[in-house]
């Protein structure tokens, strides 16, 4: 009630719009969910430059993989290599069943989770690439698999979830 009775600046008064501030803030671009097209590979004679490269690290141990991914990311920052993205792939759970046949059949379960982290790099010069690879390989912790490969559409698509309803509707339409 006290709020309703306060002085509201009317449109004809000079104090109209006195509390406005949104025009002072920087303009926010609305977020669009569209995929970015991949960069082409630049190869000019002696000066080779790789396009997007994915460094994929997989392991059963979560902390190791995360720390190693962090280490690789920071290393690239220090060496002024541009890092596009650094993301995690969904974890895969494997159930291991032991079938022991000593008299009574016993089943011992073990649940293993596989974690994967990806660091995406752009603009790696080919003279430097083997050195980087060697540094990363020599600092690899035990139990972590390393894989460096070029980024493809298929890699990008594997991160997205498939929508069965959308696909059904599209199939019905066409």
């Amino acid at each position: 009630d006290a709020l309703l009775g306060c002085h509201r600046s009317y449109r004809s008064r000079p104090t109209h719009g006195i509390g406005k501030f949104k025009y002072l803030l920087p303009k926010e671009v609305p977020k669009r969910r569209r995929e970015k097209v991949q960069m082409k590979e630049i190869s000019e004679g002696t000066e080779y430059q790789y396009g997007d490269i994915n460094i994929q690290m997989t392991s059963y141990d979560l902390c190791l993989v995360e720390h190693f991914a962090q280490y690789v990311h920071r290393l690239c920052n220090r060496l002024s290599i541009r890092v596009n993205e650094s993301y995690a792939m969904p974890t895969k759970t494997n159930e291991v069943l032991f079938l022991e046949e000593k008299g009574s059949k016993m089943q011992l379960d073990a649940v293993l989770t596989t974690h994967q982290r990806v660091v995406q790099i752009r603009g790696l010069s080919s003279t430097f690439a083997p050195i980087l690879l060697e540094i990363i390989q020599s600092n690899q912790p035990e139990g972590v698999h390393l894989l460096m490969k070029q980024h493809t559409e298929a890699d990008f698509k594997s991160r997205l979830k498939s929508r069965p309803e959308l696909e059904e509707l599209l199939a019905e339409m066409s």
Partner: protein
Amino acid sequence: SAAARRPWKLFGAMCLLRLPRITQPMEKEEEEVAALMEQIELEKSHYSDHEIRKLEEEEQLKRKKESLYDEDEARGKTVIMAQDLEEKWEQKFLRFKAAPRITDADKSNDRTSLSRKLDSNLMLLVKQKIGNQELWLLPQVEWQPGETLRSTAERAMATFLGDHVQAKVLGNAPYGIYKYKFPRAIRTENNVGAKVFFFKAYLQSSDLSQAELKADYLWVTKKELGDYLKSEYLKKVNRFLLD
């Protein structure tokens, strides 16, 4: 550019690395920090499912001994107790034997075998005859016009280790260069000296069952290089070797 104009002879040499199989032992500070972090984590962590189950079953046993609650608990009683499971796991763990970190080759200090020093890089050194001397060098072969330096290095590897070596050459660019001038006696207009370009490669498979052509070969670590190589050569080689 024709080789006749340049007075330098070109060689391509291959530095074949065998990657370490095991991590290096931790330093004293690293071990202390690791132990401290483990302790902190243990104190901060919550009980896991298995531990909760174990505690509950212990409580059940205690209650059974003190008073007769058998009939009520018998319904929810499981066949296998958590304690039994743990004992089974312990026994299995004791039966497991890990492979030794220090192999036989380490104890005998046999430098020609590949299973020595599993925690550091091993490099191939070959005894070659240059001029009049027999020297320990990284395997090198003279460059022939019309081939890339990388293929020269691969040829050098092939001559010393046979054709079917699974080695992965890292990149087309050389890692280092060593140039030296011939002694005055041999020096001519066309042959002032030689330049050796080094390339690096990783050995993929550790199985070298193929016969080695020249008998004198060694697999050495970076520290032991000083025993075999000459000082100038060693300086240039050390520049591109990571430890």
